[in-house]
């Protein structure tokens, strides 16, 4: 069907990439790709990008507002001149080969001209035809002419041709009359476009388990059975009920909620034998939020297994269950029936075989994830293979590559997964595209051009204030219009107004217009938090020709309306105070020059295991020099301990190939038996000293990827070491290898899970041990089918497609018995080394003894001690000694110090394929500064006034970053800031005896003005 892959160098390599799907994975991949120097065509099936993440109320485990952290990315993608967003579009064909594809895209008409539409919403107002509001799960109405959601990107309305009266019956047409911009185009036509691209990234997301499956649990039959997606919208302040969780039947608050897990997952009856991997977490999140909505409500979760295996997830779950007083029941999803006097009767059987029934007010179905709708069509168009569940087929060692070279897959289409893993894969796929298209980097992109900065130094402050309603998030509590009116009375304020969503794309346009119209030279936005939204507004300022530093935010949501929900008067007063203080500070803001510093175009990778080697290769393939440091004599790390993957291949072969490639790569320099002795510098300009066998080596590099790995936990429990019959799973791996595996002679094998993990010595779940036990069980059963195997577990965390192994193991006769933390199995060792395991069998409700020829302990993963390296890099580690990423959801492989990245077991326990994808992601992110070639440090740095400086050197001695140096000027000592090293903490300014040092944006005069403005409320009272 497709022409044979031609040699890409024979044809010209195209420097652009097609990204299919505008969810968080696709958007992140697009942003990463433009950073790396590639043009992106982002095609999205629906009318706006954002995907499922835009519909979520909060995200697990931090409970961040989902759209609030996503929206800045959407706006960024929308305004990036190198990303072309095509909505209502689908890939229909892909011809050519890697480096030189032609993608055929079919774009459905929007019937409203995107370029002209101002997003005013008049068309919706006048539209006579009601349709279900899909974004709100059809729990309320929208109109044929509509926008998907308020912050949608592109901020353009579109018409549903299936519903529109004009398009179907040639009547109505009111929208065309109402539209002042004249953007309505009833004659808009479907277009088929051919786009030349060098690579393709598929990120179409996931489909949902069908209503038919959920009907078995009462959906559609009983009004008060809702899906988790519906519940998510009910929880959300911008949802159909304004954030009130109510029963659909009577609009009353439910007093008793049941969450049913594994609906359409782990269920062979509906063909989905895999685990959807995310529902355990989102149910906990939803339960936590339901608790916040109603402290009295009784909440019950029905689990088959609790699968919270992500980094920090177990701790978050345990805390949520404890603090929320949730009841957790281990059972298959209960049967749901209605009862005459209202409510829903749930019937279930617990693991001891007893039957129970109880009444609930509301039932939430944790709807599983499926392959996306139209997966087959997409696969056919893209020319890739699917697996048995219609997800993209991948290989363990190339987890982001599809069966067709040059076509990559990320996000849920690669297998059910959560946001951090999707974002990680996005970074990885971007890196792989960049590697493949290295020779075409920058050939298809244009440089983002901003208008020249207006010099405002001679101007009086002219401040504009925008007060945000944030839907009802602020506006529902704080009297926003009165705050805007109040702002108009403040000194230097020449313009103030309120808007529905300050962060939406159309508001950015409005901000730019307003800045021009009123010749504003300072901007204050009273909205959410600067931590998430400052960069967005600063970019807008820049578009309006103002320096980024002329901006200040007043936090009237996270620190006002949300925390004083029941005190609207007091909250409004607080908001006014916050605006007054922000305006006072704004008047003192000055434009700060942004320095551009060169970047050393090379990377340091610490750790030569699977993660480190993969990262090194991925960076080198993009054309940058890499220094790879390994502590041991040989490369390879812990992956060498594994003798088979779950498909029976020996990973040591793949590893040996990788080692050979790394060693042979002209851009990679390997130092074995070497450790990091010292690190100095900053992003773009690090200097690292390595201790090697042959003395010190100094490496200059622009970025650093950390992959220091982990090691198996060494068990002290269960009499490990006292009998040759007691081994770890890794010992067992060895016994299972070779042509005459030694483990073959055992008759009865017992495995104990969570040895060390989940609270014994390690407070976390080690994620891979359940899969390893299943794999080794199946290997044993293959060698000797009559062999008895009993696995004692707490929760079988066979997430994703590992569930297949779980089922296969059960079918092969492996016995699985759950133990509880408070009643662990007991092991005794007899005189001759005979091993007996005693455990509680819940079904027999009795203790059972079993003689084991072999006891395999599933030991957890311990990170290599990161303390020393973390201190040198000045990056944080978690209480469990894993490196702590910059943002758990959206920056999962960035460390908080710019230019440093993390992957592999040093980040968190993970499987080989996950490690590879993550290492590729770290490599991709690491190449951002390298590809850009320069860095622009935030100008919030210290500045020394040489007139006032007395050269005492206090600043130099207190600076944690050696960012201040003392120099001599005509024999007098003076201090000066090394701007690139300064991180803006301000200790120097707080200590300077002559107030000669001031901080960019956090100036003495600015803060004093804030304090004074704070005091004005007091002054008024005492006037």
């Amino acid at each position: 069907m497709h022409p044979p892959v031609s040699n890409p160098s024979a044809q010209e390599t195209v420097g652009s990439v097609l990204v299919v799907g505008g969810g968080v994975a696709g958007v992140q991949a697009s942003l990463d790709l433009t950073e790396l120097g590639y043009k992106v065509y982002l095609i999205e099936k629906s009318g706006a990008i954002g995907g499922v993440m835009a519909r979520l109320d909060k995200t697990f485990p931090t409970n961040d507002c989902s759209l609030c952290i996503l929206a800045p990315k959407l706006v960024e993608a929308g305004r990036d001149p190198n990303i072309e967003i095509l909505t209502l579009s689908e890939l229909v064909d892909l011809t050519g080969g890697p480096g030189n594809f032609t993608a055929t895209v079919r774009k459905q008409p929007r019937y409203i001209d995107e370029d002209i539409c101002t997003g005013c919403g008049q068309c919706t107002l006048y539209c006579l035809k009601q349709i279900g509001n899909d974004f709100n799960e059809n729990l309320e109405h929208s109109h044929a002419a509509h926008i998907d959601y308020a912050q949608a990107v592109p901020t353009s309305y579109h018409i549903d041709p299936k519903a529109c009266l004009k398009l179907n019956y040639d009547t109505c047409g009111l929208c065309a009359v109402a539209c002042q911009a004249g953007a309505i185009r009833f004659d808009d036509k479907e277009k088929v476009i051919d786009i030349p691209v060098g690579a393709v990234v598929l990120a179409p997301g996931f489909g949902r388990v069908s209503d038919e499956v959920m009907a078995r649990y009462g959906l559609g039959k009983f009004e008060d059975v809702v899906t988790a997606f519906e519940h998510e919208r009910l929880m959300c302040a911008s949802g159909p009920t304004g954030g009130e969780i109510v029963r659909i039947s009577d609009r009353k608050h439910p007093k008793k909620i049941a969450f049913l897990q594994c609906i359409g997952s782990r269920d062979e009856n509906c063909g989905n034998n895999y685990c959807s991997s995310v529902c355990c977490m989102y149910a906990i999140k939803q339960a936590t939020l339901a608790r916040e909505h109603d402290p009295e409500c009784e909440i019950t979760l029905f689990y088959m297994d609790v699968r919270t295996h992500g980094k920090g997830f177990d701790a978050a779950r345990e805390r949520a269950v404890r603090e929320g007083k949730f009841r957790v029941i281990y059972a298959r999803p209960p049967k749901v029936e209605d009862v005459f006097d209202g409510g829903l009767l749930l019937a279930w059987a617990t693991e001891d075989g007893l039957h129970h029934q109880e009444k609930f007010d509301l039932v939430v179905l944790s709807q599983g994830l499926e392959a996306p709708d139209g997966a087959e069509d997409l696969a056919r168009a893209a020319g890739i293979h699917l697996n048995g569940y219609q997800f993209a087929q991948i290989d363990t060692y190339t987890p982001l590559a599809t069966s067709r070279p040059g076509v990559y897959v990320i996000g849920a289409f690669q297998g059910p997964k959560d946001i951090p893993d999707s974002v990680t894969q996005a970074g990885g796929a971007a890196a792989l595209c960049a590697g493949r298209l290295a020779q075409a980097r920058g050939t298809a992109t244009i440089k983002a051009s901003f208008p020249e900065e207006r010099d405002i130094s001679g101007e009086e402050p002219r401040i504009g204030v925008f007060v945000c309603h944030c839907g009802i998030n602020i506006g529902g509590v704080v009297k926003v219009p009165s705050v805007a009116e109040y702002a108009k009375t403040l000194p230097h304020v020449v313009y103030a107004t309120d808007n529905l969503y300050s962060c939406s794309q159309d508001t950015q346009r409005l901000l730019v217009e307003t800045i021009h119209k009123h010749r504003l030279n300072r901007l204050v936005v009273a909205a959410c938090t600067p931590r998430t939204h400052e960069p967005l507004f600063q970019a807008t300022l820049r578009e309006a020709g103002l320096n980024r530093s002329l901006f200040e935010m007043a936090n009237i949501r996270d620190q006002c309306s949300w925390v004083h929900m029941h005190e609207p008067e007091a909250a409004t007063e607080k908001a006014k105070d916050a605006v007054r203080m922000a305006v006072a500070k704004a008047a003192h803001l000055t434009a700060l020059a942004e320095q551009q510093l060169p970047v050393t175009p090379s990377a340091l990778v610490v750790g030569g295991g699977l993660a480190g080697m993969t990262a090194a290769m991925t960076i080198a393939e993009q054309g940058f020099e890499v220094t790879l440091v390994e502590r041991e004599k040989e490369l390879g790390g812990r992956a060498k301990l594994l003798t088979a993957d779950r498909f029976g291949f020996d990973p040591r072969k793949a590893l040996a190939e990788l080692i050979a490639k790394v060693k042979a790569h002209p851009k990679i320099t390997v130092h074995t038996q070497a450790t990091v002795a010292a690190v100095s510098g900053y992003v773009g300009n690090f200097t690292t000293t390595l201790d090697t066998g042959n003395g010190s080596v100094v490496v200059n590099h622009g970025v650093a990827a950390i992959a220091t790995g982990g090691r198996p936990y060494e068990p002290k429990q269960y009499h490990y070491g006292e009998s040759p019959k007691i081994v770890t799973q890794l010992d067992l791996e060895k016994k299972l290898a070779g042509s005459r595996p030694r483990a073959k002679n055992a008759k009865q094998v017992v495995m104990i899970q969570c040895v060390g993990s989940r609270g014994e010595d390690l407070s976390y779940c080690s994620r891979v041990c359940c899969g390893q036990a299943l794999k080794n069980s199946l290997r044993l059963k293959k060698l000797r089918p009559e062999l008895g195997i009993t696995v004692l577990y707490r929760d079988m965390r066979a997430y994703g497609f590992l569930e297949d192994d779980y089922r296969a193991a059960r079918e092969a006769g492996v016995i699985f018995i759950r133990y509880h933390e408070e009643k662990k199995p007991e092991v005794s060792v007899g005189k001759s080394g005979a091993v007996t395991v005693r455990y509680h069998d819940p079904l027999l409700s009795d203790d059972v003894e079993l003689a084991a020829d072999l006891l395999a302990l599933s030991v957890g993963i311990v990170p290599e001690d990161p303390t020393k390296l973390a201190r040198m890099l000045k990056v944080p580690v978690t209480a469990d000694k894993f490196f702590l990423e910059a943002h758990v959801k959206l920056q999962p492989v960035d460390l908080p110090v710019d230019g440093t990245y993390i992957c592999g077991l040093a980040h968190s326990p993970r499987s080989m394929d996950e490690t590879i994808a993550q290492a590729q992601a770290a490599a991709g992110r690491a190449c951002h500064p390298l590809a850009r070639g320069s860095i622009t440090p935030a100008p919030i740095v210290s500045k020394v006034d040489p007139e006032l400086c007395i050269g005492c050197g206090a600043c130099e001695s207190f600076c944690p970053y050696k960012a201040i140096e003392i120099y001599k000027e005509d024999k007098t000592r003076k201090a000066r800031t090394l701007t690139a090293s300064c991180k803006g903490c301000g200790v120097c300014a707080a200590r300077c005896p002559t107030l000669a040092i001031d901080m960019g944006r956090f100036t003495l005069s600015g803060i004093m003005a804030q304090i004074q403005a704070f005091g004005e409320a007091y002054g008024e009272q005492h006037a």
Partner: protein
Amino acid sequence: MPEQYSPKILGFLCNWCCYTAADSAGVGRYQYPPNLRVIRMMCTGRLDPSFPLEGLAQGADGIFVGGCHPGECHYIDGNYHALVSASLVHAVLGKLGIEKERFLIDWASAAEGPNFVKIITAFTKKISTLGPLGRAEGRDQAELRRNLAAAAETARGRKLRTGLINAGREMMKTGDFSRTAIAGLVHDKCDKALSELSV
């Protein structure tokens, strides 16, 4: 009697921990009294010793400084330097005859929304009990505020700041970051300069 007293509290929160904790309290909809007004700083290390004094002089009844837990500062040791400034503020309050509990420096990590709420709720209650500046002290409020303004000026002066530099250097040398040790150092190095305060 005026209507129910509602204390005025000014907070200086560091961007990475306490300010984030305050945001996450919002995300979790944890409610607390609406008395706090916030000035964001990148690090509590930026806290000029004059800021809290200025805040009290300008009308605050209580000042809160919130940073990262000791050892967890985003800038490595900024919060220890903040403790030095805080010790000076407490010493000044002592000299001026002002309740030391009107100034609080405490910690909440980025993840500790509920802890932040607990701290602010307790502090607001505390200040409510103390009443407007001067009430618990049994002193004239306007006079106290004048003295505070003068003290803030002194805290921006070379003499006192040199004392703080020496205290800070000593703290870094000994590596003892306990509040008592730091208070001792500040007392040793700044007492002379403090004795010149008008009270």
